[in-house]
């Protein structure tokens, strides 16, 4: 899952990025509105954390441009203090949730998980596929009740696929969503991760669709 953090306060931005990276997200940071707007327009994000008080271009305008341009990723807005009119304005231009500063990082992570799930039409924080279970809250994967040990990249690939059961996901899409922007990407490594995942669980769960990508197929 790839997330954009648009926050101008450098310390808070760094803390957000660190916490999100720890939670298994690929994170890009934008320190002003113009940059955030551009990133959101050209990159594929699974969620955005957007501060409304951004310099150069305010958060409301950024969000308006995204929604006007057909970008539909879930957006969590951060408002300074209890400014209800900001919340109303944010929701009215297409934000999906708000969080009031200062906030607890756990709460932000919980809200973000819920937003990403909601965007995929999934209600429960625990995703299942046959005997395979992925808990988005704890980032733990288990197979028939037994914990499965995954590296961070393996987890990211599996989580992305599990958010989209029965959907063919291309290697490029997977690359885009599991790596941050400034990461040296190599789509061949995706094959390596999928290969390792198949060894740790029933191999037929992840199907290769030739020339198109991978698909998570729940057992009939």
């Amino acid at each position, binding site marked *: 899952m790839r997330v954009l953090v648009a926050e101008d306060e450098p310390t808070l931005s760094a803390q957000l990025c660190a916490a999100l990276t720890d939670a298994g997200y690929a994170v890009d940071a934008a320190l002003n509105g113009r940059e955030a707007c551009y990133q959101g327009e050209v990159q594929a994000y699974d969620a955005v954390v957007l501060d409304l008080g951004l310099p150069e271009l305010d958060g409301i305008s950024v969000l308006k441009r995204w929604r006007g341009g057909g970008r539909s990723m879930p957006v969590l807005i951060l408002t300074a*203090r209890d400014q*209800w*009119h900001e*919340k*109303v304005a944010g929701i009215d231009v297409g934000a999906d*949730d*708000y969080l009031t500063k200062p906030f607890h990082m756990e709460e932000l992570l919980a809200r973000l998980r819920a937003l990403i799930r909601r965007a995929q039409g999934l209600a429960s924080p625990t995703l299942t596929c046959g005997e395979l279970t992925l808990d988005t809250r704890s980032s733990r994967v288990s197979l028939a009740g037994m914990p499965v040990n995954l590296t961070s990249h393996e987890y990211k690939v599996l989580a992305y696929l599990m958010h989209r059961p029965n959907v063919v996901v291309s290697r490029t899409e997977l690359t885009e969503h599991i790596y941050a922007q400034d990461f040296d990407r190599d789509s061949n490594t995706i094959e390596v991760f999928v290969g390792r995942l198949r060894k740790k669980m029933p191999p037929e769960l992840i199907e290769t669709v030739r020339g198109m990508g991978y698909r998570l197929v729940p057992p009939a």
Partner: protein
Amino acid sequence: MTRAGWASSLRFRLLAATVLALSVALLLAGLLLSGFFKQEVERQFEATLRQQLDQLTSSLEFNTAGELLPMVRTLPDPRWQRPYSGLYWQIDGPENVQRSRSLWDAVLTLPADPLSDGQVHAHQSAGPQGARLLVLERSVHAPEFPASAWRVAVAADTRSTQDAVKRFGSVLVFSLSALLLLLVLAAFPQVYVGLRPLRSLEQALKELREGRSQALQGNFPQELLPLTNDFNRVLERQAQTLARARQQAGNLAHAVKTPLAVLSQAVVQSQTGSAGTSPAQLAQLVNEQVALANRHIDWHLARARSAGAHRLPGQRTPVAPALAGLVRVMQRVHAARELHIELDAPGPADTTDAGLVFAGEEQDLQEMLGNLLDNACKWARHSVHVHAQALPRSNAGGQLLVRIEDDGAGIDESLRLQVLSRGVRADESVPGSGLGLAIVADLVALYGGSLQLGQSALGGLKVELLLPSVQ
């Protein structure tokens, strides 16, 4: 002063209006007076001429055959005798015509209109030497001979009346112009005296600006008193707000310094290796104290904002749009829970319901309703009802009621009072600062409203908010 500035100045307006009104009034007076004078002069002229006609008629003598005898008696006015004197008579008989000596060789041309007995006709006619004459004529006959009638005419030059009217006209124009000038000159000191309070107001403002006085001082006329009194009230309120803000800044600083002191003490203790300074314990302490500082900051910010804007005159916030906006936020934020939020508030289109305008700041209303709604949605199982209505007018002025109900667990009666106080949270497991309800209660109190918690028919908490409304 620029041209536009001068044109918009009160002095210019007053003077222009005065000059305009005076000019119109004097013009009308002049027209009326000259018209009346002309009419009067002409009436007098005609009356005198009629007297002449009567005199002439009474001096006529007939013989026994009913024929008019030649005029032998001399009429008293010498003008009858002087040629072209401007006063003439002429008697047209069936056979002959008699004329006054003054007519000399001229003849009065009389229109051929039939004259009944005793009737006097008046008409204009050209006279000798290009004079314009007023002619009066009547038909006369000897008492026993009604068949043979004579036309008796007298005529007088109207030039003298026209001259009189002209002279009067020019005297009138001159005197009215002089009057206009005097009145306009008199208007200048009037305007000056009338507007002097504005100059003293300006002076008072200047003193205020330069810090030489704390309020608008001076004896202002009754018309300016509401303005200066209101202005002084605003100043006073501003001073109070400032004082309160300073006090609150002090309170806030004190409130934040306490956790800071605790933290720095903890650092000192950890350096000396005292008990209770393990990393985990320190982390917990930092967390607690930071949360405490945050609560204080939120609390004081909310108070400062509401106190600063509190009850400035003329504030109005329509309730329905504010509620609708907040409901949109809640619906989006709780989209995953399929929460049913029912909003029942007379909408913005319903302008006749003027009671649903909150007499206060929009931010404050949003803060109160937002916190309550957020709370209701957080605890509700399936549905939240929001109802707003105007209350019948009471002595305290207009009021509006907002009721927010949910079907959650509610709050136990013993806890209801407690949750309204600062930092108390009924359930620590749900995120929040524990300030929401307390801030709402504070804002409500500042606006002179009331906040009541109760049991909802839906099963959860019922919050009833009474707020002042604009009529």
